[in-house]
């Protein structure tokens, strides 16, 4: 908490606490506080926070790049959702399907998680809710086969957008990351340039591990966009600052709830205001 009687060091310490508790991370935080030293000193907390917001905005502004315009460039535009377990991939796909349909696009979904119990039935509900067809095979099957089927169907049915769900997987599991590479290869073999968007879904309450996730998924299949979910909680999602700084990946969407409308385009300014 800030008070007018604070010394310069106390101010810096309080700002450090604000940054760290937002999950900004130790390295980005010390870089930001170093940057403060080059600014004219002021006792005004608002002004100090203003400097920090400016520094964070400079990192994030290059990552505010919506997906919508891109979706018209290829047909079918193929999106693959990836990420670790439980972050909100399947739910985000449902929300995306609704968004694209509302824009008048024809959307096909694919149940690429053939591993987890009731994963296929879960995305089936979302397909029904949004009025989209769903490509699925039996539980326990090869996800690459589902991807192959889905791409073939997307082309045959002349859809605008295909969104493929994948099973949650920890970035540290080599065999599962290899499986993801295989799925990408299969898609790419059928449609050059596809998948056009590989969307990494991250949970806003994740700490520094989100940076590892982004690095490893990026290294394995190349991430072209990020969706940050569960920002309706008390977590700030500050870890995307380090990810933006290091990997420069566009942040496409934020998830702000569990219903179909709870997906927003990433707005860097709004995000930074809420962050600190």
């Amino acid at each position, binding site marked *: 908490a800030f008070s007018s009687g604070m010394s310069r060091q106390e101010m810096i310490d309080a700002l450090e606490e604000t940054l760290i508790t937002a999950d900004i991370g130790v390295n980005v935080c010390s870089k930001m506080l170093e940057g403060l030293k080059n600014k004219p000193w002021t006792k005004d907390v608002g002004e100090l926070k203003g400097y920090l917001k400016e520094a964070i905005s400079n990192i994030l502004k290059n990552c505010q790049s919506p997906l919508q315009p891109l979706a018209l460039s290829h047909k079918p535009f193929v999106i693959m959702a990836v990420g670790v377990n439980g972050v909100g991939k399947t739910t985000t796909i449902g929300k995306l399907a609704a968004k694209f349909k509302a824009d008048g696009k024809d959307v096909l979904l694919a149940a690429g998680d053939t591993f987890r119990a*009731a994963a296929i039935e879960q995305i089936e509900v979302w397909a029904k809710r949004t009025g989209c067809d769903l490509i699925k095979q039996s539980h326990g099957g090869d996800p690459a086969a589902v991807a192959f089927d889905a791409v073939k169907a997307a082309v045959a049915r002349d859809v605008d957008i295909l969104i493929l769900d994948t099973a949650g997987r920890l970035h540290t599991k080599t065999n599962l990351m290899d499986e993801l590479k295989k799925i990408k290869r299969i898609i790419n073999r059928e449609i050059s340039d596809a998948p056009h968007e590989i969307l990494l879904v991250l949970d806003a309450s994740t700490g520094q591990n989100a940076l590892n996730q982004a690095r490893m998924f990026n290294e394995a299949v190349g991430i072209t966009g990020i969706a940050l979910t569960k920002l309706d909680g008390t977590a700030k999602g500050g870890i995307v600052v380090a990810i933006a700084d290091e990997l420069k990946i566009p942040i496409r969407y934020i998830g702000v709830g569990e219903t179909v409308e709870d997906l927003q385009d990433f707005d860097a300014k709004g995000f930074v205001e809420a962050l600190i």
Partner: protein
Amino acid sequence: SLSDRLNLVFKKLKGHGRLSEANIQEALKDVRMALLEADVNFKVVKDFVEKVKIKAVGKDVLESLTPGQQFIKIVKDELTSILGGEAAGLNLGAKPPAPIMVVGLQGSGKTTTIAKLAKYLKAKGRTPYLVPADVYRPAAILQLRKLAKEINVDAFEDDAFKNPQEICKEALRIAGIKGYDTLLVDTAGRLHIDEPLMSELKQLKEILKPREILFVADAMTGQDAVNTAAGFNAVLDITGVILTKLDGDARGGAALSMTAVTGKPIKFVGIGEKVDAIEPFYPDRLAGRILG
């Protein structure tokens, strides 16, 4: 690693028989840094470092250890004791059925963890009964039922009951009649700041009168872990925590944040996606992992 860094810090202090406030300044900074990098909450780190300082200053360095090793031992011992000293088991009590309520944020691993617990308890000779009380998430009830079949355990299957309160009441009644000795209740993921959903959990607690209320939390949670754990604990008075996805490379500092802020023990850890991937919690192992 932290121990390498600390050994380097203390190398310059060779020949000191005792740890002093002056010579541990640098070491305390390194510990603070390591814990923040490990996602331990800012305030929890502050308190922890203060505790370590008090324990370390004036301490004689044992004959067999270097000052660095002595210091690391103090840090690790303090961390292990906050994490709960030794593995706490489940308190299922005498009169069956023993209801266990599983709660937590969205996607933390509750449904999967219930299946793991059921398999674990079955292997110990108990008769678990799974109760799917998540009526919100698409195919959540089906998910638990499929897992039940996989581990050959019975699950409450009456679709006539539509809300969590009715489901719990009816499942308790059936468990009493059929003689299951343990009830494992799956609840929908929810935010600690969602008042209507948190009060729903309060109602389920009143109906079930559970022997255990287990907060299932993701090991990769960051600074927010103090808020969510404190929130659930304030409303429900949880009896323990289960930390999931420890098979990843998250340092797991959230564990320290949660035990520090709730005073409740971590009872189990999830170490994989399959139904056998659960083990009792060993505080000293997690302490080593957090320190890095």
